[in-house]
């Protein structure tokens, strides 16, 4: 890890710890205020608790041009990105996609090509709907590893994280606390529930929280659609294509709309926000990731709308290519943040439990 990033975050955290005015904003400050000195692990934990809402920046009496030059959202964002790169596995892949939007675009093109190639080479031995283009078994052969390998990679990354922050064995109550926090995006709400300072300096707005909700629940609905379809296929022998009112379609279409609209809105929001309050080197790649995720949603919707036309095989390759790229890049792009945030919230729940016991 880059020691100068950790050291700068530590310098700032020590000033925050002597001030404490921001205690009510989010999970970072109560956690910060229980320490007197900050190990690299403490800084790592604080960085992953931070949701970059920027409330503390605009409230801070010590931001530039003040000589103390505090910018905690930026310092923690830089540590966070450095964490994710350092913890990722395998390493050579890890250090491209957080800072290079072009690498994401290139990966997407390769994804399209792979799928087109698969369709050409394997094709279908007959079947309905999309399976007429690429057989069900071929899809499983491609996507099962493309889904499981990134999960395996992320599991390794999280083990690195857990060791760094001195994580303890996880209790059910820790998980419950973390999921409750994440489900409501409490750390994007500020302590008074009025949202982030993201698009217009110190004005509080729920925009980012609501848009993030749309993306997260949109993604989960799309994921649920695929999961339900898998169960229907293997357990109940009900094969695609499914009707408009079937569960896979209801989940998929509503999720696709939320994902597409959410990602579009998030990209616009990021254009309005001040890049210097985040990690400027990750800005382009973050936008690239948002557009990729939005493209997954949009291409899925277009594919559904035009599935009975001659464009379908090409659209299927485009959609599945984007899905393939998205999954394979999951451990190395902004997508990793969801896993780290959850891990940080679980660790935070443990620390609160420990502090409570000591008292």
């Amino acid at each position: 890890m880059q020691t100068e990033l950790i050291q700068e975050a530590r310098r700032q955290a020590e000033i925050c710890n002597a001030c404490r005015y921001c205690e009510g904003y989010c999970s970072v400050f109560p956690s910060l205020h229980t320490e007197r000195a900050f190990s690299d692990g403490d800084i790592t934990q604080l960085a992953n608790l931070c949701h970059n809402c920027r409330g503390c920046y605009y409230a801070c009496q010590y931001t530039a041009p003040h000589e103390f030059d505090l910018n905690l959202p930026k310092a923690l964002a830089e540590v966070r990105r450095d964490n994710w790169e350092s913890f990722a596995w395998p390493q050579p892949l890890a250090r491209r996609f957080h800072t290079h939007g072009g690498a994401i675009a290139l990966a997407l093109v390769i994804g399209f090509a792979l799928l087109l190639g698969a369709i050409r080479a394997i094709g279908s031995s007959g079947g309905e709907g999309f399976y007429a283009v690429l057989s069900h078994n071929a899809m499983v052969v491609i996507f099962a590893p493309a889904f499981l390998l990134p999960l395996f990679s992320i599991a390794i990354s999280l083990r690195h994280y857990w060791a760094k922050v001195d994580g303890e064995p996880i209790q059910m109550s820790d998980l419950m606390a973390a999921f409750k926090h994440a489900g409501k995006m409490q750390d994007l709400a500020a302590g008074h529930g009025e949202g982030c300072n993201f698009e217009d300096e110190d004005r509080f707005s729920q925009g980012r929280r609501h848009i993030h909700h749309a993306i997260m629940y949109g993604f989960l609905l799309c994921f649920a659609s695929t999961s339900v379809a898998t169960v229907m296929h293997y357990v109940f022998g009900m094969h695609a294509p499914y009707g408009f009112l079937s569960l896979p379609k209801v989940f998929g279409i509503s999720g696709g709309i939320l994902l597409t609209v959410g990602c579009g809105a998030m990209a616009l929001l990021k254009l309005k926000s001040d890049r210097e309050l985040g990690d400027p080197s990750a800005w382009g790649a973050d936008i690239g990731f948002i557009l990729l995720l939005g493209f997954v949603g949009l291409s899925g919707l277009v594919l559904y709308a035009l599935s009975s036309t001659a464009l379908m095989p090409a659209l299927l390759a485009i959609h599945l290519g984007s899905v393939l790229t998205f999954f394979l890049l999951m451990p190395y792009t902004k997508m990793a943040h969801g896993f780290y945030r959850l891990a940080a919230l679980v660790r935070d729940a443990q620390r609160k439990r420990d502090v409570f016991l000591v008292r």
Partner: protein
Amino acid sequence: MATQMEAYDIAVIGGGNAALCAAMTAAEAGARVLILETAPKPFRGGNSRHTRNFRCMHTGPLGPLIEEYSEDEYLSDLLKVTGGKTDEHLARLVIRTSEECLPWMEEHGVRFQPSLSGTLSLARTNAFFMGGGKSLVNAYYRTAAGLGIDVRYEAAVTHLELNGDQIEWVDFTYEGQEHRITPKAVIVASGGFQADTDWLTRAWGEPAKNFLIRGTPYNRGVVLANLLDQGIERVGDPTQCHAVAIDGRAPKFDGGIVTRLDCVPFSIVVNKNAERFYDEGEDIWPKRYAIWGRLVAAQPDQVGYVIIDAKSLNLFMPSMFPPLKADTLEELAWVMDLPADKLTTTVAEFNATCGDTSGFHPTELDGLTTTGLTPPKTNWARPITEPPFFGYSLRTGVTFTYLGLKVDDTAQCSSRDGKIKNLWAAGETMAGSILGQGYLAGFGMTIGTVFGRIAGREAAAYAN
């Protein structure tokens, strides 16, 4: 050459809490208001930027405040710190009005949070701003903009022309040009003069050159001096100010809260000759921190040195600066540039007079006192024996000065000949009308809010 600006009913001079409360109140009453803030936008808000809470009377639970805090208890807390040097009529007005201010503040965008960790003793009496004073200032500027109030930053008022019983015009510089405006009414809310070291030195003498200023470098008292020179009634002693002992490594200006040190009760404090000079354990720290600025100011070179040992390190809130550290007292003396022989003798004498320490209690008066030592340490007296040893230097940190404009209960200013019919004052610039000496945490924001609103209301009634 002076240029004319568009017509305003009211000019508010200053851009902190009191100024904003006055401006918003006046604008809501229908007045056209201009705020002239001398600081650039990033440093707007004067000392309000550095504040964190609002001391508030309440007859039952109110917002973040628990239980109750009665008018009489509030007043008695105030009289204790001012030693009775308080205008009781104005003080009661501030206290009584504070209760209705809290909901008003919320309506104007301020958000509160529970008492901060390390400040639980204030949970009943002081309402803490979420994010601190700068977030309050930000919220008020947003609300003010919504009310159509114009703000000029880096607008330095140079002169108010007093003619008989009224202010005729206001001169200020802005964007390199001189401007003259003729508002119907003027509200002065531009703080004390503590950032003008020359003025402070005239009042205090040479020691003032070694003082640090905890807040804004923009409160230089230009308007205050201008009005006093023209015979506006004054109040307060120029040597009186809110001054605390802060970390000696703090910057000259604007260090704010993170430079404060809370370790005195668990320490011995010596001067540059390594001699103790005051009872470090006289009372709990929130009741004593505001006297240590003057105590340190009275020592040679206006500097003090706090000495603690390992067992006390985690008993107080951290400062932004780590303590100096050494394995022996001799080494610590060397690091801190103190005479080593004298320091070891002073510590040995102190240690020898400490008694049984089993009843030590860091957050209550525990009665652990020295016996036969001068000056004594009357609480938390534990021998300094456990290495490593730690030290901080202390300097006098001035928050604000009390010499100011005398106002009546409508915030109106006067001269020897009677009231000035279009001049009001609010905030630190008139706080000397209420605080003769001493300070009560969170009371400055209460004075600013109460008198800001009164000044805004009265000025608008006059201008309309």
